[in-house]
């Protein structure tokens, strides 16, 4: 792994200093500084909310939430990078050389899926309930679909993924419903390489 890649295994322990010159991490660091309006060294919810395009994104609020896990009110640079690390493309040569004792990298398929799952699972009970699914669908589906139709779509969606018949989608069921999809490709952004 070359110097171009930011090393996320080390990062959580590393002090939130200025990254080395010439790395991709530096660009993220500059971005972090730019978002941090009062130069306070961390980002608050408001800092992210001011990004204009995020406000119109139907999932914007939830994605902002994912930067602030466990009710935190601030996110420092390692935390910031850790969230974004979910979207790094998967390197083929990475997987072969990986030490099995090390934890799974954040950009593995499972972790990418977990990230999405947490966007759905608002109450963090490990299941997407029908109500949660309805809320997501309401965000995604255009206004032209009526509430009743939305409900039936929700029912169908839950029913489709729900295998044990508990009326909710667990993480396992969630991954199963997406097993045919190329998540590694669809949930990656090239510039985060």
């Amino acid at each position, binding site marked *: 792994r070359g110097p171009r890649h930011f090393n996320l295994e080390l990062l959580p322990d590393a002090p939130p200093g200025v990254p080395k010159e010439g790395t991709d991490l530096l660009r*993220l660091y500059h*971005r972090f500084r*730019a*978002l941090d309006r009062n130069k306070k060294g961390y980002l608050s919810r408001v800092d*992210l909310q001011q*990004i204009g*395009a*995020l406000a*119109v*994104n*139907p*999932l*914007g609020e939830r*994605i902002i939430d994912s930067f602030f896990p466990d009710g935190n009110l601030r996110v420092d640079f390692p935390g910031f990078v850790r969230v*974004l690390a979910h*979207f790094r*493309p998967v390197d083929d040569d990475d997987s072969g050389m990986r030490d099995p004792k090390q934890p799974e990298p954040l950009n593995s398929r499972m972790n990418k899926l977990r*990230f*999405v799952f947490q*966007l*759905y699972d608002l109450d963090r009970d490990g299941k997407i309930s*029908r109500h949660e699914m309805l809320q*997501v*669908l309401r965000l*995604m*589906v*255009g206004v*032209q*679909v*009526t*509430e*009743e*139709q939305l*409900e*039936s*779509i929700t*029912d*169908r*969606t839950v029913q*489709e*993924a729900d295998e044990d018949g508990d*009326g909710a989608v667990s993480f396992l069921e969630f991954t199963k*419903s*997406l097993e*045919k*999809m190329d998540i590694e*490709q*669809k*949930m*990656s*952004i*090239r*510039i*985060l390489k």
Partner: protein
Amino acid sequence: MLLASLPLLGLPLAGAATTEAPTQEPGSSGEPPPGLALFRWQWHEVEAPYLVALWILVASLAKIVFHLSRKVTSLVPESCLLILLGLVLGGIVLAVAKKAEYQLEPGTFFLFLLPPIVLDSGYFMPSRLFFDNLGAILTYAVVGTLWNAFTTGAALWGLQQAGLVAPRVQASLLDFLLFGSLISAVDPVAVLAVFEEVHVNDTLFIIVFGESLLNDAVTVVLYKVCNSFVEMGSANVQAADYLKGVASLFVVSLGGAAVGLVFAFLLALTTRFTKRVRIIEPLLVFLLAYAAYLTAEMASLSAILAVTMCGLGCKKYVEANISHKSRTAVKYTMKTLASCAETVIFMLLGISAVDSSKWAWDSGLVLGTLFFILFFRALGVVLQTWVLNQFRLVPLDKIDQVVMSYGGLRGAVAFALVILLDRTKVPAKDYFVATTIVVVFFTVIVQGLTIKPLVKWLKVKRSEHHKPTLNQELHEHTFDHILAAVEDVVGHHGYHYWRDRWEQFDKKYLSQLLMRRSAYRIRDQIWDVYYRLNIRDAISFVDQGGHVLSSTGLTLPSMPSRNSVAETSVTNLLRESGSGACLDLQVIDTVRSVRDREDAAMHHLLCGGLYKPRRRYKASCSRHFISEDAQERQDKEIFQQNMKRRLESFKSTKHNICFNKSKPRPRKTGRKKKDGLANTEATNGKPLRDLGFQDTAAVILTVESEEEEESDSSETEKEDDEGIIFVARATSEVLQEGKVSGSLEVCPSPRIIPPSPTCAEKELPWKSGQGDLAVYVSSETTKIVPVDMQAGWNQSISSLESLASPPCTQAPTMSRLPPCPLAAEEPQPPFDLPYDPRPSFAFPPSLAKAGRSRSESSADIPQQQELQPLMGHEDRTHLSPRTANSHWCIQFNKGGRL
């Protein structure tokens, strides 16, 4: 378009055919016939179109013959077979006429044969995939084509300088560059013909195919620039001309794309207003796309690019605007035309090759060209891919590169361009023609034949089709939004960012402008997937359900006990009078037995299964309107029933029905009034039962809502005869009805309990079903059930009813007894009675009002409707269903005003 092309395609042929004509028409052009000829042979008048039609017919028949054997078509691509057939036919023509006829004329090719193919590929291009890979496609199309043209041309010139090309081939460097430019472009027709049968993975396909479409602009520019340079003579070319050449590349490509987008916009806008003239919708699509092609051609812009962009740009809006039928028509016509044109092109290509007068052979040139195009194509692909992979998320691996290099087929475009060369300016034209023919044949036949085994051997990732699921659709949308958001956070305005921007712009402005408001809904992809899944499920369910109906449905254990006259009427009574009973929905507290449940299931099964009997034929001779046919209506109903069933299965979870409680009820009553007459007007005979439940306020509310709904629904129907929206609306009604039924079963609260049998009735499962049926029937008045089916239905219905009337089971099981006292005053269901209230629909409303007892009709008619499918064939003797419907509407209006 095809018809229009007939005479023109025939024109070049017509002259040629005259030589044979005299042998076929003796006596027609000699001395004028003395009297009235009994029989006249007028070959000349029909010759041109006749020949065209014959050629197409021959090509189509050949296609049929090819496909008789699966083995042959699985091994050999159709395009190869067609070229070979063309060679044979050309040989025959040559042998018979002693000279080559019926060749591929460039004019015909560019004006008539090419546009349908390009339109087809542009229109059905998977746009998401296309734009996802746009960068790679553009690189290969622009850089790759330029690279191929210059390297091939220069290498051939080098070959000539080295003395490997015979000196009789008189060509300068510019000539070779010109030849290189026309031979270097990958041909969309050939690529499509071969790759459609190979089924490589989507990314690979879209890259090769997109390149073949977009490189047209480059080819056209290079060809024109080189051609004009050649005509000017290389000595006269100034430096400014080179600059102009480079500039024209941008003008031609961007101009072509702009023309296409303008026409796409016009097309989308026009289809927004075709609500009342659905029949011309497909025509508009073809006309405007063709206009785009011709306009671009006229302005010497890239016509292929124009049509591709037109198809790509308009599809989303046009598909949303035009009716379902028009969509099918567009699809089929486009595919037919494209396939037809493709067939003719390959066949004529084969025929053209036999004309030895046109070409001159030089082995050095031919072999050199073959080698160079393969070599430089491969080299170009490898170099470009290496650069592209630095930027691509998913790199293209070696196998992909091999397929892309090998898939660079040349085709009819190159041939047509080389035919267009001016022999006086390009002395080596004949050699070029021969070389082009060999190259085209080699790529189409040899590469086309071997690419399939190659793909298999290399284990190229094939395209895989799996059924779309709602989850996948939903999650894909989620992914898109997440990625766009992450790009926002990172502050990098990449592809996802711009796609998100575009989608918002499209949603806010473009779709509003270009889409009919009623068409807006089906645009939503999640809804669309849901809709299609439902249809599919419903059809498969009904396929099974039909079986159950025919076997078990008629052999219900409870068949012998078949008297439930009273119950049904009580049911009706309660439903009639109890429009205020929405309050009572909470009231009923009954434990349903297992048997009830089974009956309910059976009832719904019957509801679901009974879609089939439907009137098939409807005499319609209107040229301007196509009546909705059985299939579509069937789909619609299947959809409705499926929705209903689904809701039934979910009703246990539906406790939160209160928020729309006020809505379904008035609707339901509105329906009822529509069905019968205003039941507040009950006059003689039966007094209004349970008036206590129904205070005046509720009635007024009902009437209002009914009027509202009537106007609403009629408007919808008028506005959208195509039916999608109507389905959705009906669906929502069904939904509400379903909810009501759900509430019937899950909300226990003993407050006001109507007389016991009715109470029991009220919770019966088909109560809701009746309501639903009424809904269906009111929109579908033309149902006919065959007699045997009717008998089955009657039996099963009555058996169900008798089964499921818990408190009264004793009394009604004895058949043909007088109904139980409570129900004595009820009107009797129609299948037990000789009188048929249906003719009342034929009366003018005033007459009906005067002549009939309100309550009778109000109580009867819903049931009538429920059974109307069974009675349809009877009352068609009185009046056609349509008239029944219209009278119905009139009555309904009256009722509404009351």
